[in-house]
């Protein structure tokens, strides 16, 4: 079976010119030179060489074995979240080269986790971090610099307590709150158009800033839930954007974190909260974390991941940032529950 010319990513004008001269399959063109093709079909010389590039077998995708992939993955360090339970569930932290979606009701801590990650990705390599930069795309206007400063100060403090050898002392001299702020790029997008063009522009941005290993979009849902009447168009635009992000994440080993809102689905008599943006969007991210309140405690659940078991962990948000539910408060909770049990009996 031959591959038809129309299945190449070419403009319809070029395709119809080729077809008019009888070139239906890629096999008909392969052996020609750009000059020949151009004179025979009347397409421009540049277009002709573009066509020939497309049918060139050298350019076809190549595979790697799973073993090579495993070795590549082993070289990528994850981004710690500072919540050890969540880190353990995710195998050391948020993995590089994946797209991650955080879903949750307002106030559950989606933005807090984003800010925390924006700081954590900058932890110097000698402390087990990545020493990288971060791009924060803010669509809701919730980026809160004061809060980021607080978290950055807490992380700097944490690292200075861990400092032991000479290398770490040297690193600590430059690892300051100011440095963290200067390594963070913030983009404000007001509507879906701006967000989509920003996403399309990311490859160029990453070429200029190769140190950026984390892209945060807080939130992907807000611009798309605002006056969007053509729902199929919305789904198509979103899936296209998600695909671009996934390609970017994989090819550049950059992590993309997106936040999503929750919406209500009516089911029979009752209703329940589900992540917004529709059923198809659910496939978009590689890892989906659901942040929710259960019994007045904050819980994070991995609801979709190809590499992790579905797990639920506790976390809390304190002045330092996104943290473990501390042992003391856990014990206190258990005690009060014990007391309750005693009281009840």
């Amino acid at each position, binding site marked *: 079976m031959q591959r038809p010319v129309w*299945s190449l990513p070419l403009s319809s004008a070029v395709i119809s010119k080729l077809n008019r001269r009888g070139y239906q399959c890629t096999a008909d063109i392969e052996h020609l030179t750009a000059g020949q093709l151009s004179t025979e079909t009347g397409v421009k010389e540049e277009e002709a060489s573009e066509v020939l590039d497309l049918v060139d077998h050298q350019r076809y*995708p190549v*595979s790697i*074995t799973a073993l090579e*992939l495993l070795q590549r993955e082993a070289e990528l360090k994850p981004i710690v979240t500072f919540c050890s339970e969540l880190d353990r569930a995710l195998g050391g932290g948020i993995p590089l080269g994946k797209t991650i979606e955080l879903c949750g009701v307002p106030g559950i801590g989606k933005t807090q986790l984003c800010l925390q990650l924006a700081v954590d990705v900058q932890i110097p390599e000698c402390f087990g971090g990545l020493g990288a930069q971060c791009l924060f795309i803010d669509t809701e206007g919730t980026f809160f610099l004061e809060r980021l400063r607080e978290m950055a100060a807490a992380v700097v403090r944490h690292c200075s307590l861990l400092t032991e050898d000479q290398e770490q002392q040297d690193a600590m001299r430059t690892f300051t709150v100011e440095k963290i702020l200067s390594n963070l790029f913030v983009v404000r997008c007001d509507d879906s158009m701006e967000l989509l063009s920003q996403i399309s522009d990311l490859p160029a941005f990453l070429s200029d800033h190769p140190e950026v290993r984390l892209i945060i979009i807080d939130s992907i849902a807000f611009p798309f839930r605002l006056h969007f009447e053509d729902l199929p168009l919305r789904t*198509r635009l979103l899936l*296209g954007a998600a695909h671009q992000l996934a390609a970017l994440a*994989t090819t550049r080993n950059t992590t993309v974190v997106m936040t999503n809102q929750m919406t209500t689905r009516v089911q029979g008599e009752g209703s329940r909260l589900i992540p917004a943006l529709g059923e*198809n969007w659910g*496939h978009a991210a590689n890892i989906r974390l659901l942040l929710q309140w259960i019994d007045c405690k904050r819980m994070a659940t991995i609801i979709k991941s190809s590499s992790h078991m579905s797990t639920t962990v506790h976390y809390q948000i304190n002045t330092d940032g996104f943290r473990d539910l501390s042992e003391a408060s856990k014990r206190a909770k258990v005690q009060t529950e014990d007391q309750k049990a005693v009281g009840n009996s």
Partner: protein
Amino acid sequence: MVVLRAHMCPGLELQLVRDLRECVCNAYLCVKALLAIRRVLLAQHTAFPVSGADLYEDLLSSTAILSTGHPRLDELLDSGLYTGELTELSGGPGTGKTQVCFGVAVHIALHLKQGVIFIDTTGGITATRLHQMLQTESSSLEEQIAALQRIHVFQLFDVFSLLDCLCSLRRSGLQPVAVGGACVRAVIIDSVSAVISPLLGTRHTEGMSLMMQVAALLKALVKDFSVAALVTNHVTRSVGGAVRPALGVSWSHLPRTRLLLEGPDRSTHSFSSLRSATLIKSSRQPCHMRVEFDLSWWSRSKEVPSAKRKHS
């Protein structure tokens, strides 16, 4: 209309083409020559009839049934994936499509010692997870490494590179990837809808033709090289809340066997690894057959397989 060129088929020499052009110019058509060309062209481009007996013999010698490694799924698929056929897994997010793909890849690479081509279009493949699965199946490091080397991964993010990839696989006869390893017996695409669904739904029919082109190439590939193909698909929800595979009616004719995976009811806060699979299209087993299976099967420890089996 195809323009006649030299060497399009045997007998169509440059001189003949020139002569023909001249014939047309002089309004003097050599009917015999034209008829001869027509005969040759027809003979070259028509398929030959094959007798059923031959076909059956061919089938017996070339068809293999590749077990998925999971007894419950094998039950549903009538003992596994058939080579030369297209099998589809559809399901919502987090229903275990990718896990089943990983499981199948690991089983074929480790136990059947055959090559697998894994085309990842979502960035969802993690070799760490494949390695974990291998560790539960085999304790020898050499075996694990050999199995990992039999899995060939393509990471593609648009439909054109998927077409390029399928074309080059077909052209090379699956050879370059099979160098040094076993021959390839399975092609897994996770997921096919991720690259196709952004193209559909516009008024242009282009997306539809590209989808059909992917399907046609894939079918030709599995038939010619007698490999099994496993693809995954998203789902859409109809107004009534019922779930059905995405990509529409035209796609639904293409896979020979279709499975719909569903997760546990999420109304409670428990997230279990139990999933159910329903057969929605098959030519071997009654449709709407349904089995429950456990995703943790692939993470089970070697010592207690019987307990898990009872569980599922």
